[in-house]
C-alpha cells in the first residue's frame, strides 16, 4: 500500500458501513427544519436582509439541506459496504450508557456528589466485566480522587445531596461544602 502520495490521501475519509443510514436521517432532519423554517423564525419589518432574525437560520437550514442531499446522493451511488446492521447496533448499544449517565445525573442531588460518583464508578466498572477487587477498588479510588479534585479543591458548583440534611450540624455543613 503506498503512503502519502497525493493531497487527497491526507484528507480523504472513506465511507464506512452505516454511512447511508446517517445520511438518510440527517436529510430527514434537514427537511423537517426546512418545513418549519417559516413558522419557527420571523421576518421583521424595516430591517436589512442580513439583519433579519430569520436570515442565518435560513442560510443554515438551506445549507444543511443542500449539502445533506449531496451527501445522501453520494452515499446512494457508492457501492454498498457490508456490516450496516452491526454498525447501527453498535450505535444503539451506546444508549445503555446514556441511561447510566442520566441515572447518575439524577442521583447526585439526592445522594450527594461523593456517594453517587463512587457508586456510579464501581457499579459501572462491575457492569463492564471487571470483577476483581483490585479493579473495583481502583474505580472507587478514582471516583474519590475526582470528587476531591473538583469539589473539595477546585470548588466547582455541584450541589450537596438531599441525604446530607440528615447529618448532624457541623458534619452537614462540612459535607455540603466539600463533598
Amino acid at each position: 500500500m503506498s503512503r502519502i502520495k497525493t493531497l487527497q490521501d491526507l484528507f480523504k475519509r472513506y465511507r464506512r458501513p452505516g454511512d447511508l443510514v446517517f445520511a438518510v436521517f440527517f436529510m430527514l432532519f434537514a427537511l423537517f427544519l426546512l418545513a418549519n423554517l417559516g413558522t419557527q423564525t420571523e421576518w421583521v419589518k424595516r430591517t436589512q436582509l442580513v439583519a433579519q432574525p430569520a436570515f442565518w437560520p435560513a442560510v443554515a437550514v438551506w445549507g444543511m439541506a443542500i449539502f445533506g442531499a449531496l451527501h445522501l446522493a453520494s452515499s446512494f451511488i457508492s457501492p454498498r459496504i457490508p456490516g450496516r446492521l452491526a454498525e447501527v447496533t453498535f450505535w444503539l448499544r451506546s444508549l445503555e450508557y446514556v441511561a447510566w449517565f442520566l441515572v447518575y445525573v439524577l442521583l447526585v442531588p439526592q445522594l450527594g456528589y461523593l456517594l453517587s460518583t463512587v457508586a456510579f464508578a464501581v457499579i459501572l466498572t462491575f457492569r463492564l466485566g471487571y470483577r476483581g477487587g483490585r479493579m473495583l477498588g481502583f474505580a472507587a479510588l478514582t471516583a474519590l480522587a475526582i470528587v476531591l479534585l473538583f469539589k473539595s479543591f477546585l470548588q466547582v458548583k455541584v450541589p450537596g445531596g438531599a441525604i446530607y440534611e440528615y447529618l448532624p450540624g457541623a458534619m452537614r455543613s462540612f459535607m455540603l461544602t466539600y463533598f
Partner: protein
Amino acid sequence: MDTLFSGLELLARWDVVVALLIGSIGGVIIGAIPGVGAAVAIAILLPATFSFDPIVGLTMLLGIYGSSMYGGALPAILINTPGTAVNALTTYDGHPMTLRGEAQRALALAYTASFFGGVFAILCLILLAPLLALIAPHFGSREIFLAALLGIILVVLAHRGQVFAAGMLAFFGIFLNTVGLEPVKYTRRFTFDQSWLTSGFDLIVVVLGLFAISQAFMLLVDRDTTPHPQPVKGNVFSKMGELFRHKRVATSSSGFGVVMGMIPGVGEFTAQFMSYTYAQKSSKTPEEFGKGSPEGLIASEAANNAVPGAAMIPLLALGIPGEALTAMMLSVFYVHNVIPGPQLFQNDLDFVYALYIAMLLLNVIVLVFLIFSTNLLTRVIQIPTRFLGVIILSLSFVGVYSLRNSVTDCAIAAGFGVLGLVLKRLNLPVVPIILGMVLGGIMEVKLRSGMARIKTPLDMVDRPIAAIIAGLIVLVLVLHVRTLIREHRNRIAESDHDHDIHDSHLR
C-alpha cells in the same frame, strides 16, 4: 521590551506556575493515553477554569494543548497507535524505528523535533506580535466577517473526499448557534415553544458531548484492550543531539507549522502533509520515508508542534478560532469578558506576551519531564480502555453539570455524545460542527454591523484587507475546483491509499 517584561510579571504568580505545571505535565500524560486527546481533556476542564483568572485558566488549557502532542508521539512510536489524531503520521517512521530496535533514538528525535517546532513557533510569534498590533486595528467588522467566512470555507474544503459531509455538519453548527431567543429583535428561533430551547445550545455542552462523552461511549461500547508498550532501554537524553544533523528539515517543517497554524481552518494535518512531502522530496534518501526515516519523523513532529502557538494568532488578534481547541479557549475569554480581537493586541499586549512566554516555558517543562519519565509513562498508559470510558464519563459529568446544575444540559450533552459516537464511527469530522457554531455566531454579528455602514454589497470589499481576504476566498475556491479536476483526471485506485490516516476516533 517593556511589554515583554510586564508579560513576564503577569506570569510570576504561584497559581500560574501551578497551572502551567499541571497543564503541561497533565497534557503529556493525556496525550500519551490512546483514546484521550487534548480535546477531551480541555472540554472536561473548561468549566473548572471559569472560576480562575483568565491567565491562570488559559495557561492550564494552553499547557494541555501544547503538550499533548509530545505525549501522543510515545504510543505512536512504541505501539504504532497514535496518542492523539495528529500523531498519525509519526507512526509511519517512528514505529519502524522501534521495530529496528531504535525506540530510544526515535523518541529522542520526536521529543527534540517537537521542542524545536514549539519553540520556533513561539519565537516567530513574539517577533510578529508588534507587527500584528499594527495590522490588527485595520480589521473592522467586514474584515472579521470575511476572515470567519474564509475559516469556515477552509474547514469544509480541508475534509476532502467528505466535503459534502463537512459542509452539512458546518451548517448544522451554524444552525445550532441560531436556536433560541435572538438578542437583537427578541424573536424566537426554532424553539418549538419548548422552554429548554429558549436559551439555545451552550457551546460547552455541545463540545463536551461531541468530544468527551462520545469518546467515553466509544470506549464503553467497544471491546476492551490494554496497550502494552515495552519499556525503552537507555537514556533518551543521550540521543537528543541528532536533531542538529537535520536542522534544515526541522526548520522548514516548523515554518510550515507556523504558516498553516495561522490560517483558520487549516491546522496540523495540512502542515504535517506539506512538511512531510517537502522533506521527502528534498531528502537524499526519499525511499526511507515510511520505513523509519529520521527526517520523516522530524517533519511530522516539528510541524504539528508548531501549530498550537501559531493557531493563537487568529484567535487573539481577530477573535477567530482556527480549530476546535482554540474554539474552546475562546469561551474562556468570553466568560471573563476579555474579548479577543484587535483591541487585545493594542491594549493588552503584555497579556498576549504572557501567554506566549507560558507556551515557551511549557515546552521546556515537557522536555525535561519526558527525559526523566518516558518509562513511567509507558506504565501509565496501560489503562484498560473500557475502564478509561468510566473515568471520562465521570469527568464529563463535572464539566457539564457544574455549568449551571442543569439536568437538561446533561441530557443534551448525552445526546450530542451519541451523535459524536456515530460521527466518529463513520469517520466523519466533528470539528466543522464546533467551528460552525463559533464562526456562525461571529459571522452573524459582524455581518450585521458591517452591512449597517455600507450602501452596496461591493462596498464590503472596498478596504485593502477586506479585498485581500475576499480575493483569498475566491482563490481557495478556484484552487479547490482545479485540484478536483486534476485528481479526477489522474484517478488513483482507492486501494492504493492508506484510508485510516485520518481517524476521527482519536479526536
